[in-house]
């Protein structure tokens, strides 16, 4: 039967699609939008190429022993990566010790305990904290946290300590953990809570035994993102822990130290002769290697957090 209906398909399609000027406009806008969306790929490729080429060329110039020399002294050609790794690990560890209880506690309270009005009053605390720039927290860590907490309670002697920097980075990480974890708990359907309340469970039990397990993928993702953020944080460490630019291998958080990020910043603000020295090994070039390490490390963490969400997610 369908075969008997003869339609001038081309004509119909043309008249349905409207006037050609409108279609041309539509197509050119479509093109522009595609370009805008595609730019992000260009940025990723740019980062990869910029880092990879320079990092490899630095690695081929440097004596590999210098990457294992026991101290980080780029101006003297000593690029001990272990010293930086220990610094990053201590700062990130401290930050997570601060940010995990504060962030998750705030998230649970806002999602499960606070009434709507309290929520409206309390949530801006987290949002304001999220808007404070890291240089400001860095100065706070140097001028307040280090003298009062680190020197006062822990008896540190140095004006620059990794502990103070770690606490500062932790403060910066709280809003990220709180907001991602709260979203995850918010997404747990009310029916699950009501079922538990219905058999007489108190709020604490509902929170710990029902909501928390149901939101666990989002909570783990929040913590992984928190670690990624803490590893990538630069200014707090540059101001509060690594002002000297050099570092030794140490696991004592009461000492000054240097992380991958702070070491990069410290190289970057070095004087112009470090930047432009022509021949021989240029200390500045190690910056690209550090950037590559940072990029890979945070990439792995970010991809992991997405994986966790996807693997553990249950659809309600």
């Amino acid at each position: 039967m369908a075969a008997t209906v003869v339609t001038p398909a081309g004509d119909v399609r043309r008249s349905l699609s409207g006037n050609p000027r409108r279609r041309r406009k539509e197509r050119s806008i479509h093109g522009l939008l595609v370009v805008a969306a595609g730019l992000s790929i260009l940025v990723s490729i740019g980062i990869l190429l910029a880092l990879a080429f320079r990092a490899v060329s630095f690695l081929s110039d440097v004596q590999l022993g210098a990457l294992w020399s026991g101290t980080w002294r780029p101006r003297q050609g000593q690029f001990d990566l272990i010293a930086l790794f220990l610094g990053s690990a201590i700062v990130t560890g401290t930050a997570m010790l601060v940010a995990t209880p504060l962030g998750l506690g705030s998230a649970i309270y806002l999602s499960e305990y606070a009434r709507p009005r309290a929520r409206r009053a309390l949530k801006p605390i987290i949002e304001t904290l999220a808007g404070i720039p890291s240089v400001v927290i860095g100065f706070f860590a140097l001028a307040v946290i280090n003298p009062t907490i680190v020197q006062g309670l822990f008896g540190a002697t140095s004006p620059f300590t990794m502990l103070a920097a770690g606490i500062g980075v932790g403060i910066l990480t709280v809003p990220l953990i709180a907001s991602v974890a709260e979203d995850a708990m918010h997404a747990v359907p009310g029916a699950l809570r009501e079922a538990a309340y219905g058999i007489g469970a108190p709020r604490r039990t509902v929170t710990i035994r029902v909501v928390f397990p149901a939101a666990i993928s989002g909570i783990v993702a929040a913590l992984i993102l928190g670690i990624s953020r803490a590893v990538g944080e630069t200014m707090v460490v540059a101001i509060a822990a690594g002002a000297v630019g050099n570092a030794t291998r140490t696991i004592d958080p009461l000492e000054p130290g240097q992380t991958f990020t702070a070491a990069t910043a410290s190289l970057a603000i070095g004087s112009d002769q470090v930047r432009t020295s022509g021949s021989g090994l240029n200390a500045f070039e190690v910056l690209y290697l550090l950037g590559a390490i940072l990029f890979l490390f945070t990439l792995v963490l970010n991809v992991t957090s997405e994986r966790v969400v996807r693997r553990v997610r249950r659809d309600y």
Partner: protein
Amino acid sequence: MTVAGAAASRSTVELALRGKRRDVASRVFSGLLLSSLLLSLFILVALLVSVLVDAWPVLSTRGVDFLNGNLSRFESRAGVRQGLIGSLILIGFVAVIAVPLGIAAAVYLQEYARDTSRINRVLIANIRNLAGVPSIVYGILGLVVFAQALRGITGPQSNGLSYISGGLTLAVLVMPFMIIITMEALRAVPRSIREAAYGVGATRWEVVRSHVLPYAAPGIFTGAILALARAFGETAPLLVVGSVTGYLSAGGGGNVLETLQGPYTALPTIIFAWSREAGDEWAQLTAAAIVVLLVVILVVNLAAILLRNRYERKW
């Protein structure tokens, strides 16, 4: 019997409901949760108060002179004028480049591309990853691409370490953030709005232009403000792209292009530089500069929150 039974069960229920098993652990638990939030508030207040106290000697004695002063080796003369102007110019780049491109990319990903297409998934995963890349890595990108490879355009005289390089770097840094926020705002516009427009024969762009964007505008606008505030406080990438931490000549000569191709500084960079100087006077100057930075950022953030509360719709 039935009456007695009912009375007995009622009393046990009441006992259970009122404090027979007064649940101490629950109270401790909710107290701990609330105190984690209050501790965050305490940190915030302590930060603001300590900065204000440190800044007070400078702000009260120098006032406008501090806002108007140039960078200087002398504590009594140093001011934040160049930093403020520099930061505003950099923010201009972000507003002109990152905001429209971010919106355009989000419109494509949310309204044009099919959710299921592999390219779309790759693009979105890529943007999420870019949003998680540490800001200092963007600084390295800016150094290699804008300051070195494009030196001829960005600043032949300044080694490429110029306003243009710094502004472009910040724009690239903020773009993923802008895209993600805009996509969320677009997603919140219900399907029926789009279908109404398609129903009367609008093309895809007409639907977006006349229906989706206007309804998503408050969310997009809030996102743009937050993105600009973020760029305003960003320091690490600017250090790598050579934002000046020491002396910067007050300039004055030259046309607009020459200025933009010349050396630059920004308010957060100045804060960083001053925080490294020894002595109480410099600490006070640092705190005063932080007050200026925080006033700008907090006012802008507050505006964003108020705007969102005012115009946010629940569908």
